[in-house]
């Protein structure tokens, strides 16, 4: 048998597997009532339509399984797809759910590598953290961004978010953990978006349009007195945002 070496070479380089880390929001399901789920998803989407449009998500069904709430996984997937979300994984599923997921072309993710963050109801969660000094960095892996985040771009990190370049006005960065921006922050920065009251925002030049920690926010008008070009940190103290020099 003869092989044309030229030919084999082109064939050999046709594809390449690369390892890459992506940040994907996790949707934690805690009810088996599809109408309620649909309702609440629609409400969330209304808040940030662009963010959720065609957004990939991983479905977390641990909680309903723990509480023995049976759910029609096929229908659930349909509800999400109709809402414009793209389920790309299931987590904490039982044998049957996992099988259906695979049939639907949805991969199974293990629960262990990223701990589920307890989703708090922002309105009625009592201030569980008394002192502002509890440095609760959630132990999910940090996401590192070294390119500028431009106007119109959104970044969501399930853990900490570290950005080395500038964040432009009109950009939005969100993290379930802390946010570090080692450059000018001009856009919107939301840390602790799943309710982590201990999350903080650090940046080397604060010119943000909006900053928020666990749902408590301030807009740029409220930040007029802030000195530019100075590294600051922002944290929550008794439901109030504190902006302080890190120096």
């Amino acid at each position, binding site marked *: 048998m003869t092989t044309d070496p030229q030919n084999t070479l082109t064939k050999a380089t046709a594809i390449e597997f*690369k390892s890459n880390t992506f940040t994907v929001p996790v949707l934690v399901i805690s009810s088996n009532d599809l109408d309620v789920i649909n309702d609440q998803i629609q409400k969330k989407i209304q808040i940030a339509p662009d963010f959720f449009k065609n957004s990939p998500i991983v479905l977390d069904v641990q909680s309903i399984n723990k509480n023995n709430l049976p759910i029609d996984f096929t229908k659930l997937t349909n509800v999400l797809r109709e809402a414009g979300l793209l389920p790309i994984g299931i987590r904490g599923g039982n044998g049957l759910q996992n099988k259906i997921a695979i049939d639907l072309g949805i991969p199974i993710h293990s629960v262990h590598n990223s701990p589920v963050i307890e989703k708090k109801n922002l309105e009625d969660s009592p201030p569980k953290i008394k002192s502002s000094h509890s440095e609760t960095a959630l132990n999910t892996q940090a996401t590192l961004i070294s*390119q*500028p*985040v*431009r*106007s*119109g771009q959104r970044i969501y990190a399930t853990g900490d978010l570290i950005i080395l370049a500038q964040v*432009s006005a*009109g*950009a939005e960065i969100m993290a379930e953990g802390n946010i570090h921006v080692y450059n000018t922050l001009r856009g919107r920065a939301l840390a602790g978006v799943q309710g982590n009251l201990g999350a903080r925002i650090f940046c080397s030049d604060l010119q943000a349009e909006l900053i928020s920690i666990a749902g408590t926010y301030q807009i740029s008008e409220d930040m007029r007195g802030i000195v530019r070009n100075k590294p600051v940190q922002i944290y929550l103290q008794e439901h109030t945002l504190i902006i302080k020099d890190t120096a």
Partner: protein
Amino acid sequence: MARIIVVTSGKGGVGKTTTSAAIAMGLAKRGHKTAVIDFDVGLRNLDLIMGCERRVVYDFINVINGEASLNQALIRDKHCDQLYILPASQTRDKDALSQEGVGKVLEELSKDFQYVVCDSPAGIERGAHLAMYYADDAFVVTNPEVSSVRDSDRMLGLLASKSRRAERNEEPIKEYLLLSRYSPERVKIGDMLSVNDVQDILSLHLLGVIPESKSVLTASNSGVPVILDEKSDAGQAYADIVARYLGEERPHRFIDEKKGLFGKLFGGK
């Protein structure tokens, strides 16, 4: 293989077509075989600025639809035989452009040309996306005002995420800032953002500053790219830009206020 340059901005009316015509002519005059494509389907004004509107037989869309060959549609410039124009259609609507169609035309042009300049329509929708999708280099034309800078920033985000290079995880598009319609006098009285302000916001490599200049209108009225008006400030600014793009070092000009006679006598150092 041609280098594909997109001239883009987000915001409309900032000088993309003026710039496309000028730099395409500049590259061609230096001996590089260059094609310039009008992506602004339905509006068509690159051919007016290039002064070839009366010689349009076939257009970009005819080529995409296979109704004409590239050679039939390309118009050779009357000032420079290294420059060819592929005009847009005035009669079709924007949906006539398809991604595969554009890809095929660019691929065919790449075999024969050294530079292909794509004049993008305004906005960040389909037409602008198609114009930048295959690009190697992006000339981001910005006027020194907040809304133009913001739109450029938005476009930079799309260049970094929605281009073929981004999708294939290749080396990103090289981005250059062209600050156009600059008027040092208006910067001084706070009417306009300064070069530094704009660079601070966009943090982008500045390829050149093009002054606000009457010569641009004169040139476009007579259908001659302004770069051929070698005496004009805008023409010189574009010549500098082409030179810097090709790797030459040239000090930046047109950033500081011109000193009038009074200034020269009393204010100058």
